[in-house]
């Protein structure tokens, strides 16, 4: 009976603000114990969706289920949810202990047990001795840990995180990311995480949901979404991609040529090509090649299933472990990110861009 249940399920959920449709017929599940991330640019509807799940915004149409119960009309205080905001939202006039005990008090937990539970929550977020301090006596990172402790101490059905790391500075953010993931694993709590930061999304999620214009562009395991974007938007939003129109050519074989509009020919795999072949014989496609999947070399070493395009390096951005190049090939600039061995390639150098067929993702052409 170890059947996976859904902590949250959205069925055809629509949200309109007046004339504006913020979320359009969304279908989504958040499985038990999983970490689901909504990723997208601002205004894509990710926060609105989170607020609908939380009950902070009502749903225009469709059904929202939490633990298989329809909760459309259930007010927020009756949904058993843990909510963490970007701004921490700790009660400034209450001590850390009272902040964490707040939800327990309203759940009619006996006083004796509250102390025990708060202590355990503080231990979990590794701040055992701050109970009698006030929020403004803690640093931003500590405050966010307390906000997390306050949200999980009530043992919520779902943990909702609205850009919880965005207010922290870079080093702290990475530390908290690891911490957050550890706590989520330890408690096995279904979590919805909203962010516009792709590295957070890729690092933390079991399931990544890329949103744009109030719709889901793509959902799946982070690796899947990253390697096989189904739209130019996803390809562009996650990492840096070169997206070039072209024509798919030739017979059905292991490696198939793609003639780019700029004149070069790349190879792609049958599997990649198969994703658009079903679109009624149309040969017009877009090739997506991620910047870090192009290998720069000074010599041309022919390899099976690999194309080497000669080009010249226009600019070099030195990034430490990697360098970002703009390589000009037949008048078009390609973005390339390569690890640095000893020295980055020099500006103005003639290089070959080696592109493997399996890294040439094919999308239908003229889609947008």
């Amino acid at each position, binding site marked *: 009976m170890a059947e996976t249940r859904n902590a949250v399920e959205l069925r055809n959920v629509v949200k309109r603000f007046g004339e504006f449709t913020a979320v359009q017929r969304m279908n989504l599940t958040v499985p038990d114990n999983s970490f689901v991330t909504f990723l997208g640019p601002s205004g894509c509807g990710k926060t609105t969706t989170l607020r609908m799940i*939380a009950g*902070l915004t009502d749903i225009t149409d469709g059904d929202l289920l939490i633990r298989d119960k329809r909760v459309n009309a259930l007010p927020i205080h009756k949904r058993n949810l843990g909510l963490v905001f970007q701004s921490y939202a700790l*009660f400034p006039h209450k001590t850390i202990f009272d902040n964490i005990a707040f*939800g327990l008090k309203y759940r009619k937990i006996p006083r004796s047990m509250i102390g025990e539970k708060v202590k355990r929550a503080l231990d979990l977020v590794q701040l055992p001795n701050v109970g009698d301090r006030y929020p403004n006596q803690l640093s931003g990172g500590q405050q966010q840990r307390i906000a997390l402790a*306050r949200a999980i101490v009530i043992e919520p059905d779902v943990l909702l995180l609205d850009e919880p790391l965005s207010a922290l500075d870079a080093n702290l953010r990475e530390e908290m990311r690891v911490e957050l993931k550890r706590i989520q694993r330890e408690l096995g709590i279904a979590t919805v995480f909203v962010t516009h930061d792709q590295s957070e999304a890729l690092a933390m999620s079991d399931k990544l949901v890329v949103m744009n214009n109030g719709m889901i562009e793509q959902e799946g395991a982070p690796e899947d979404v990253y390697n096989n974007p189904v739209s130019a938007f996803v390809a562009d939003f996650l990492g840096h991609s070169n997206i070039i129109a072209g024509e798919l050519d030739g017979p059905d074989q292991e490696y198939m040529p793609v003639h780019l509009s700029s004149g070069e020919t790349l190879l792609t795999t049958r599997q990649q090509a198969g994703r658009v072949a079903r679109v009624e014989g149309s040969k017009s496609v877009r090739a997506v090649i991620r910047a870090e999947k192009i290998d720069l070399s000074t010599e041309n070493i022919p390899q099976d299933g690999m194309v080497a395009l000669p080009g010249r390096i226009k600019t070099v951005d030195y990034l430490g472990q990697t360098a970002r190049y703009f390589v000009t090939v037949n008048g078009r600039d390609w973005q390339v990110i390569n690890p640095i061995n000893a020295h980055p390639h020099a500006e103005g150098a003639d290089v070959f861009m080696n592109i493997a067929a399996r890294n040439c993702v094919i999308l239908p052409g003229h889609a947008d």
Partner: protein
Amino acid sequence: MAAESARGRRQPWILLSPSLATISFLLIIPMMFIVVYSFWLRTATGADQVGFYLDNWQEVLTDRYYRDILFQTFQIAFYTTVICALVGYIPAYFVANTRMRSKTLLLLMLMLPFWISYIIRTMSWINILGSSGAINTFLIWTGAIDSPISMLYNQTTVILGLVHYLLPFMILNIYVSLDGIEKNLTEAAQSLGCNGWQAFREVTLPLSFPGLAAGSLLCFVLASGTYITPLVLGGPRDAMFANLVFEAIVTQLNWPLGSALSLVLLALLGVLVAVYSRYLGVDQIAKSFR
């Protein structure tokens, strides 16, 4: 080096000198005059006798009459403050939480009464409550009453006039502290199990308390020091402490007694402000005038 640091030490004082001069000439020196006056004596001939006499102070501090009026003054100021707080909280909450684009316009409308003289505003109640005022005329017209009811010139109308005068100060102060409360806080409280009312009681109300306290202090102090409202809307038995000062100085031309009276009020209100400042801090009041 030494010259430079001496100059550095002088610089703050040079920069402060305009404000220090203004405060000295307009506040501190006149106040000293009042203190000096209070020890003079007014003789039967009407001339002031210069010297150090404690007669005024003795009269002011021992005469029951003054004590009763002082008590009545603080009573009226207290009722006014409580009513302002209760009535003012609702519009302040509305303006702070409205999604209307015209928030600035609403705030401007709060300030609108200040464009009309306070005396005119106070006197307008005579046209509303007076025997040939709006209410009486309407009631006689409908036939509900035959002759006008007397509504003016009692403690209630004095309090009404004071509330009318002081409400914007209260609303503004409460608004400022409500506006500073992060919206996520009530949402967080609700997600933890509070209904709307409980979230208000646990989060919004305690966090707006500084504004409520600042508004209350301002209302109480301003109400305690007013003499126009009881003069215009009060009866002979509704005099407030400032009326005594007015009476002594303007009517009887007894400056020494008037000075002693006003210093009593100043001292008592000063104690109130000091207590407030000790526990809550006066800087909250400044926030609403930013």
